[in-house]
C-alpha cells in the first residue's frame, strides 16, 4: 500500500512530507501529544457549537411556536392592527398556491434539461448548460425577485401570485436539473440497451424505461428544491407582495407564510410576534415534511440499483 503511494507520481509537494517529519523533530514527544489532544477537543468543540446553534433555534421555535399555535391561527384571516387574535389561514393557502405555481414552471424545464443532459449531450453545449446551472444556483434569490418584477409586475401594473410563483419556479430549475441528471445517469446502461435491442426508439426507451426506473430520484429532486423555495421570502417581497385578505385571482397580490412572518416579526406588537413564531413553526413543519418525503424516495431509489450482496 505505502510503497504504492511512494511509487506513484507526487501530486502533492514533497515539502509537505519534509515539513511533517521536521515538525516532529522540533517538538518534544509531550508537546506533540498535547497538541494532538488539544486538536481533538477543539474539533469536537466546533461540532458541538454547530449543534448548540441548531438546538437553540429549534428550542425557541418549538417552545414559542407551540404556545401560540391554535385552531384560530390555522383558520382565520389576520386581524386589523391593534386587535389581538386572528390567524394566517390565507398565508398558509397562499404559500401552497405559490408552490404549486412554482412547480408548474420549474419542474418541466428542470426535468427536461436534466434528461437531455444525461441522455443526449456530452458536448460543449452540455458543458455550457451545466456551468450556467451551477452559476444560477448561486445567484441571490432577491435577483430573481427583481427579474420577475420587471417581467411580470411592471407590464401588468400589479403585484400578482403569478409573478411570485414564477420567481420561485425559476429558482427551482437548477436544483431539479442537477438531481435529475444525476439519478437518470445512474440507470444501468444494460437496461437501456435491452430496450434498444427490442427495437424501441430512443425516446421510447427514455420515457418507458429510463424515467420510470429513476422516478424515485426525480421526485427527490423536486421535493428538495420545493423545500428550499418554500421558505424563500426575498423573491416574494415585490412579486407576491402579501395580502391581508383572501386573493380572488392569481393576478392579484397573494399572502405567503414567509412574507407574513417577516411583516409580523418587524412589527411592534407582541401579539404579532407571537403569531410570527407560530407561522415559523408551521413553515418549518412544512419544510421538514417535504424533506422527509424526499428522504423516503431517495432511500427507495438507492436500493434499486445498489449492488446486490
Amino acid at each position, binding site marked *: 500500500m505505502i510503497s504504492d503511494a511512494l511509487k506513484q507520481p507526487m501530486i502533492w509537494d514533497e515539502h*509537505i512530507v519534509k515539513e511533517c517529519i521536521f515538525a516532529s523533530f522540533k517538538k518534544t514527544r509531550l508537546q506533540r501529544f498535547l497538541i494532538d489532544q488539544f486538536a481533538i477537543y477543539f474539533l469536537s468543540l466546533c461540532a458541538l457549537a454547530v449543534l448548540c446553534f441548531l438546538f437553540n433555534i429549534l428550542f425557541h421555535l418549538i417552545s414559542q411556536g407551540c404556545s401560540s399555535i391554535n385552531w384560530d391561527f390555522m383558520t382565520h384571516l389576520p386581524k386589523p392592527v391593534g386587535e389581538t387574535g386572528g390567524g394566517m389561514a390565507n398565508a398558509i393557502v397562499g404559500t401552497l398556491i405559490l408552490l404549486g405555481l412554482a412547480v408548474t414552471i420549474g419542474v418541466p424545464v428542470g426535468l427536461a434539461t436534466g434528461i*437531455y443532459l444525461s441522455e443526449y449531450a456530452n458536448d460543449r453545449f452540455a458543458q455550457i448548460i451545466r456551468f450556467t446551472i451551477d452559476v444560477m444556483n448561486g445567484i441571490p434569490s432577491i435577483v430573481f425577485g427583481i427579474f420577475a418584477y420587471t417581467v411580470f409586475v411592471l407590464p401588468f401594473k400589479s403585484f400578482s401570485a403569478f409573478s411570485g410563483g414564477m420567481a420561485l419556479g425559476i429558482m427551482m430549475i437548477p436544483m431539479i436539473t442537477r438531481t435529475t441528471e444525476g439519478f437518470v445517469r445512474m440507470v444501468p446502461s444494460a437496461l437501456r440497451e435491452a430496450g434498444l435491442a427490442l427495437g424501441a426508439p430512443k425516446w421510447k426507451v427514455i420515457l418507458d424505461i429510463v424515467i420510470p426506473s429513476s422516478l424515485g430520484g426525480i421526485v427527490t429532486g423536486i421535493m428538495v428544491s420545493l423545500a428550499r423555495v418554500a421558505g424563500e421570502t426575498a423573491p416574494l417581497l415585490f412579486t407576491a407582495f402579501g395580502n391581508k385578505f383572501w386573493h380572488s385571482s392569481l393576478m392579484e397580490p397573494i399572502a405567503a407564510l414567509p412574507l407574513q412572518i417577516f411583516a409580523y416579526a418587524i412589527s411592534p406588537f407582541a401579539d404579532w410576534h407571537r403569531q410570527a413564531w407560530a407561522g415559523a413553526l408551521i413553515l418549518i413543519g412544512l419544510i421538514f415534511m417535504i424533506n422527509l418525503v424526499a428522504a423516503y424516495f431517495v432511500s427507495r431509489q438507492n436500493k434499486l440499483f445498489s449492488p446486490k450482496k
Partner: protein
Amino acid sequence: MKRKDTSDILFRRVLVIFPCLILLIMGGIFLKLTVSSLLSIKKFGMVFLFTRTWDPVFENFGALPFIYGTLVSSLIALLIAIPIGVGTAIYLAEYAAQGVCKIVSSLVDLLAAIPSVIYGLWGIFVLVPLMRSQVQPFLGKYLGFLPFFHGPNYGVGMLSAGVILSIMIVPFIISVSREVILAVPSVYKEAAYAVGATRWEAVSTVILNYGKPGIMGGIILALGRAIGETMAVTMIIGNNVTISASLFSPGYTLASVIANEFAEAASNIYLSALIEIGLVLFLVSIMVNILARLLIWSVSAKQSTGMKAYS
C-alpha cells in the same frame, strides 16, 4: 426504420428547447436588469459605486455604504464560520465514529434547511437581546480600545448580522469540506502515519494541504451565499445608511436595501438605482461562483489523475 429516426429527432428537438430556455432566462435576467438600470447608469456612471450619499428626496444615489456593509458583514461571517465549519468537517470525517458522523451530518443538513426568515426571527428575539446585554458589553469592556468595538450598543448592527450569517453559511462549509476531506486517498494518510505522525499531524499536513483548493472553493461558495443573503440580514443589521468603523453600529447591505426600499421606490430613478444594485449583486455572485467552481474543478481533476496513477 425511417419513421423511427424522425420520431427520435423530433423528441430531441423538443427536449433541447428546455436547456435553451435556461440560457434564455439567464440572458434575460442580465438584459432586463441592465435595461432597467440604464437610467441610473447614465446619470451616475461608475461614480455610483464609490459615493456614499443615498438620498431619495433629492434623488442622489451612491452604493458605497451598501457595498461596505455587504463586505464587512460577509467577512465577519467568514471569520467565524471558517474555523467552526472546517473544524467540524475534520471532526466528522476523521475523528467521529460512523454513527455520530451520520447523525451530526443530518443535523447539519437540518440547519441548512431552515429558511432565512426564520433565522431572522430568531435573530430579532434571541440573538439581538443576547448581543445587547452580554456579548457587546463584554467586547466593549475588554477590546474597546479597538475602533471596531467602540460606540453605542444597540444589539442590532454589523456584528449581529455577521454572527447570524456565519450560522447560515456554516452548513455549506461543512458539507463541501467534508466531501473534500473524505476524497483524500487514504494512502497519503497512511504514509504520514508510517513516518510517525500523530493523528493531528497527519490531518494538518496531508489532508489540509491536499484538500486546500476544494475547501477554498467551498468557502468561496459560502461567501457567495453570505453576499446575497437578504432576509435575516435585513431583519437585524439595523438598516442605516452609514459607513462606520464600529461593528456595533447599524449598517445596510446591497440585498437588504433592495428588500426594504424596492416596493416603495416612488420615482423612476430611485427604482432604477435599486435595480442597478441588483445588477451589481448579480454580477458579483456570478464572478464568485465561477471562481469557486474553477477551484473545485481543479481539485476533482487532480483527484482523477491521482486515482488513475493509483489504479
